[in-house]
């Protein structure tokens, strides 16, 4: 089938992730949505790699996974910290800084 469909799927996933970031309050879930977006990127890379018939895209996907993992480490640390302080992981509670 046309590999372009995979790109469309990737775009779809990306959009879902972005919308999730907008709609969900819980920091953890927002963060997972971001991860979803990253994975959408991976899918796109792999699909394109297939289309171009080289493996560069696929290699990139691996790098991205590693980076994502690192991001998870840092992210969870930060979120945990604020969760312990506020006893809530809701983003909307954290708005001391404004205007």
């Amino acid at each position, binding site marked *: 089938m046309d590999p372009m469909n995979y790109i469309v799927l990737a775009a779809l996933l990306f959009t879902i992730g972005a919308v999730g970031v907008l709609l969900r309050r819980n920091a953890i879930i927002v963060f997972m949505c*971001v991860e979803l977006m990253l994975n959408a990127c991976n899918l796109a*890379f792999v699909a*394109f790699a297939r*289309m171009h018939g080289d493996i560069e895209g696929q290699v990139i996907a691996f790098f991205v996974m590693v980076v994502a993992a690192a991001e998870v480490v840092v992210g969870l640390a930060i979120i945990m910290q604020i969760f312990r302080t506020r006893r809530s992981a809701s983003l909307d509670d954290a708005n001391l800084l404004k205007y």
Partner: protein
Amino acid sequence: MIPHMDLPVITETPPNIDWWLLAPLATVFAAGVLGVLFEAFVPKGRRRGIQIGLAVLALLAAFVLLVLQVGSLPADESGVTVAAGVLAVDRTVIFFQGTITVLALVSLLLISERRDGRDAFAAQAATVPGSEEERAHIMAGSQHTEVYPLVLFAVLGMLMFPASNDFLTMFIALEVMSLPLYLLCGLARRRRLFSQEAAVKYFLLGAFSSAFFLFGAAMVYGYAGSVNFGEIRLAVEAGGAEIFRGGDGEPLLLMGIGLVAIGLLFKVGAVPFHNWKPDVYQGAPTPITALMASCTLVAAFGALLRVFFVPFGGSAESWQPMLWVVAVLTMVVAAVIAVTQRDVKRLLAYSSVVHAGFVLTAVVAGSTDGLAGAMFYLAAYGFTTLGAFAVVTLVRTRDGGQELGDLDRWAGLGRRSPALAGALALFLLAFAGIPLTSGFIGKFAVFEAAVAAGATPLVVVGVLSSAVTAFFYVRIIVVMFFRDPEGEGPTVVRAGAATGGVIVIGVAATLLLGLYPGPVLDHLLPSSEAGSEPVAVMVDQASTETGAK
């Protein structure tokens, strides 16, 4: 033909990696790793000193190496790519890296500054604010010496960011730069709730934006069949990888440009991707804010310039309208919002947004002069803003505790401590672009490039918005000098050697670059003799093998 098809061959003859050209990055990286090891093995008491020493040494070494590298660059061509073409080394890159290293050194002074044994960072970030164990840690005088390795890693990312020669490297650099910063933002000693909130916001939005960047990279890859800047440039000229020879790849490219732009514009804090800046700048520990306001901005613009000039340089007419709009928005909106800010750190945050807008006009110019103008502007701004934040760290509330952000309570500062207020006034005037300060030369450089490139309307908007910005810079001066202190007014803690040094450096740089910018402008910056196209001075080899000498 695509070189990757015969990848196995490369495994037999490994790519020649020019370690000499990689040395600066390697030094910083090594120092960072070493710092982590020290955290593990060096006893608490001695860590701080060692860490600071290590960091300073590393940055100094990196700077020296960079200076030496300038000599070893091939005189004829603009520069070379190293490590199988993932990193570019040319005079532009070295200027950016050098600037970042120096600025990082200076902000390291701020970071290492401490008063009566306490630096700007939480005793133990893991503890809950106001809790028993927090107090215990404070009593015990424990501290986060991890700060220094983190800073080193961040700097590493910053050094890579403008040097990356393909989108993957750039993405990694982006993350290496950002992740430590996310953490550092959350480490403030006082007002920890603010600090933590800043960290969360910065992190989530940053991750969000880097996702955009990455998806954009994917699109570009799809269009060009490679993420290497040189390859992409060729592909753009050719109209896409050969699977798109039909010429229907344009949408991919545009999507790619757009999404990548979003990621980068977020990092430079252009409107409407700026919301994070005020909050994060205010919440983060001031020394870290200083680091971000100077080094991160330089790095981000370095990357942005590279992306728009090298890979996308061929399709300037397609992204220029976009940058026009963004630049106008940035200059106008941020300037207007800033007018009513009360907190000095938020104010400086908005001001840095406005300045990003000014630099964008140079990007729009899309010429070598524009590139040079932007480079000068960033360097000048970096030093000035460091000085400004250094002053902020010294102005405290009566109880001597936390910094006094509220401007209205700065009244009479100019009469109490004229030297400090005078220094800040100088920085503010430089921000406002008053002649005889570096700010004016910078403004002139970028605007001159823009006018020469026919973007005069943009410049008109620019000058009008800088008139608006002048209003709030001047207001600070009014508060400091013209108002009588209400009651006792603010206290000014005596500037330690480090902070004092930062302020002095800031003043010196601001005046020097304002009075005698000639040397920098003439010798360190790319001149349009090489060609009016910026790519003429930025390395863009397509082949991955040119790293070999």
